[in-house]
């Protein structure tokens, strides 16, 4: 609305200004209402409803009739169940979903940190390659993008066969004298199976976003640095890295939030064996056992993701302001900040809906 108000006086003659503004205001309201309704239906309602549900007890069994009865208000017990590991009067024994919360939390963090780190390095590398002019560049670009085009479920099945006990991965390891590994079952191989598949699939996404950033860097900056006699490493650290930082941060934010919600890959590849149950898998398993408790868990996951997103936005924003002054650059930086914030909000909103629903 503010954009409309600012734009109007500049383009329209002053005489019509008042009536046009009033009309525009009404029109603006009309135009905004569908969006508000839409956002309410798909984001606010599921989110609020999930929180409401999380404060009710899961249905319990009436011993006399053998039928389930509504559990009533639960207070914070669904939350203490997960966070303090309380199963009724005792702490949750191994083999209950409650006891898996912290292992799921840490393994999800582990996947996030390791996958995203590897993806940044590989993605940067791929992007720099794709940004260069050479013969067959189109072919390389297409080849790099193929894994991203394959659905995650299919990727998971592909790696399930590759990493099977009798699969090609163990066969190749055998050639160099390593005993076959239980990729989908043993704790460490299973964790790395998921990281390998995840990195394979999503590095192209990272590379694509970084490439978009690289293409915004004007070539005269590089020419100037060449004239000044900068080494390749200096060019990379002093020019490429600072200038690509904002799109890179957006890419990292997207990927971080993505991995924090990882579900399909471990669900299909390992089924949670070897301690690879992620937080989202735990939510789905809990939904089958009782959804009020699952609502509490998904709210916890949502809060974790929201905190991470907020940290990224704060952190990313701070970095942008510290960039070297200069009116042109500063303006661009501000634009990027707005973009990053909007993008982050969009991602975290999606995760709200996903967590709540």
């Amino acid at each position: 609305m503010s954009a409309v108000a600012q734009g109007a006086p500049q383009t329209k003659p002053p005489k019509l200004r008042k009536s046009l503004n009033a009309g525009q205001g009404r029109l603006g309201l009309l135009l905004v209402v569908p969006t508000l309704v839409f956002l309410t239906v798909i984001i606010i309602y599921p989110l609020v409803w999930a929180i409401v549900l999380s404060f009710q007890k899961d249905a319990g069994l009436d011993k006399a009739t053998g039928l389930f009865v509504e559990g009533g208000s639960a207070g914070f017990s669904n939350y203490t169940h997960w966070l303090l590991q309380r199963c009724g009067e005792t702490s949750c024994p191994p083999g209950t979903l409650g006891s898996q919360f912290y292992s799921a939390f840490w393994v999800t963090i582990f996947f996030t940190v390791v996958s995203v780190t590897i993806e940044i390095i590989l993605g940067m590398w791929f992007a720099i390659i794709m940004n260069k002019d050479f013969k067959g560049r189109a072919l390389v670009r297409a080849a790099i993008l193929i894994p991203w085009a394959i659905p995650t479920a299919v990727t998971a099945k592909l790696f399930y066969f590759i990493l099977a006990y009798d699969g090609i991965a163990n066969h190749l390891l055998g050639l160099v004298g390593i005993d076959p590994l239980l990729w989908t079952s043993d704790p460490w191989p299973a964790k790395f199976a998921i990281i390998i598949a995840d990195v394979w699939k999503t590095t192209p996404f990272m590379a694509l976003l970084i490439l978009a950033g690289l293409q915004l860097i004007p070539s005269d900056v590089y020419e100037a640095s060449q004239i000044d006699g900068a080494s390749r490493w200096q060019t990379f650290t002093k020019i490429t890295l600072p200038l690509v930082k904002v799109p890179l941060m957006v890419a990292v934010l997207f990927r971080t939030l993505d991995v924090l919600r990882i579900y399909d890959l471990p669900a299909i590849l390992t089924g949670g064996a070897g301690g690879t149950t992620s937080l989202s898998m735990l939510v789905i398993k809990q939904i089958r056992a009782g959804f009020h408790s699952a609502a509490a868990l998904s709210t916890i996951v949502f809060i974790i993701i929201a905190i991470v997103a907020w940290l990224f936005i704060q952190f990313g924003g701070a970095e942008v302001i510290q960039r070297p002054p200069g009116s042109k650059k500063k303006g661009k930086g501000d634009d990027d900040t707005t973009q990053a914030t909007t993008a982050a909000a969009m991602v975290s909103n999606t995760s709200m809906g996903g967590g709540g629903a």
Partner: protein
Amino acid sequence: MALYSKRRTLTLLAGAATLSLMAAACSSGSNSSSSDTSADNSRGPITYVQGKDNSDILAPTVAAWNKAHPNEKVTAKEQSDQADQQHDDLVQNFQAKSDAYDVVSVDVVWTAEFAAKGWLTPLKGDMALDTTGYLPATVKAATYNNTLFAAPVSSDGGILYYRKDLVPTPPTTIDDMWKDCAIAKKNNMDCYAGQFAKYEGLTVNATEWMNTFGGKVVDDSGKPVVDSPESLKGLTALVDGFKQGYIPKQALTYQEEQGRQSFEAGKLLFLRNWPYVYNLALTDASSKVKTKFAVAPLPGATAGNPGTSSLGGHSAAISAYSKHKATALDFLKFLTSEEQQKFNMEKGSLAPTRESLYSDASLVKTYPYLPTLLKSIQSAVPRPVTPFYPAVTTAIQDNSYAAISLATAPDQALKNMQAALTAAISGS
């Protein structure tokens, strides 16, 4: 400025109105309990829902019914081939109190959960179903709180596949089977495998080992009693199989198919699996054991007592929200009739729930494993019949997996399983 703030108020009001509308809509939605359990004698068209039909028996079945009942036609709906997805699809429909599904096919382990939620029509009184001639275990699995809630349509039990070219007489006890492992070693094969990956199949297999030694997961009143010396013997025997290498390490990743592939490739001496493997091992182009295998009951703890199988299979139940329950009950009787079950066996290899069919000469001729399967199902113990089955199976899977992957000692694993089952069944 004033104009703007006014508009802003308007916007806010509009937003708030939308919100409260939403709230009203959803609260009325969740409070209305107008489940129309209309008269039980109503007739009309109904819908039957089951998992994906892999053997093309659903269409002819429904066609046969529709020909005889032109005014009470059945529409068949196939779900996905994944049990979890079938379960979730049914739950969503029941939660919505939808009358879209009249007769539903339920896995034996879901019956108690659906019944306790009040989603299934009890088969008693006017809706009673005669269960004489059914295998007792299949009826027990369809019964919750002393009431029958579903009609057993198909059954399933574990049997031991063995290489008759290498082992002339199949082992009857687990100790004998371990002795035969020397033969496997000599031929550079793996000895024994079942389903030991961390999924529902592990619940089936681990429970079988504990039941075989006289252990129980829950007693008749539904109380967890798994932490017993008998269960410990069973779990220890299974863990020993892994420790001694009788069961190969990679069996920790085996579901049904991986074990079948290994057996058909001639890499496995003994395989615990369901009857569906029989025809595949006999006819698969890639099978190297076509003429070299036979089936036997699962090996037991002592001679003379074969192993105890877990029970698989499906039942058909009537939704509590069905509007044509009389038709639904007739269709249930039709689905479970002797002729229909014979057809299911002949065309789809679905094991019958009626005992008489296991001695049917023509069936036994085509499916020589039927007498073995009958023994397996006769001694089968249903997995715990409990409305908290999802939590119960997690408790069994996680803790038996910890034991067979040698991360936790069997006695500690059973203590944990007992505690987890107690927590699961108390519903928290």
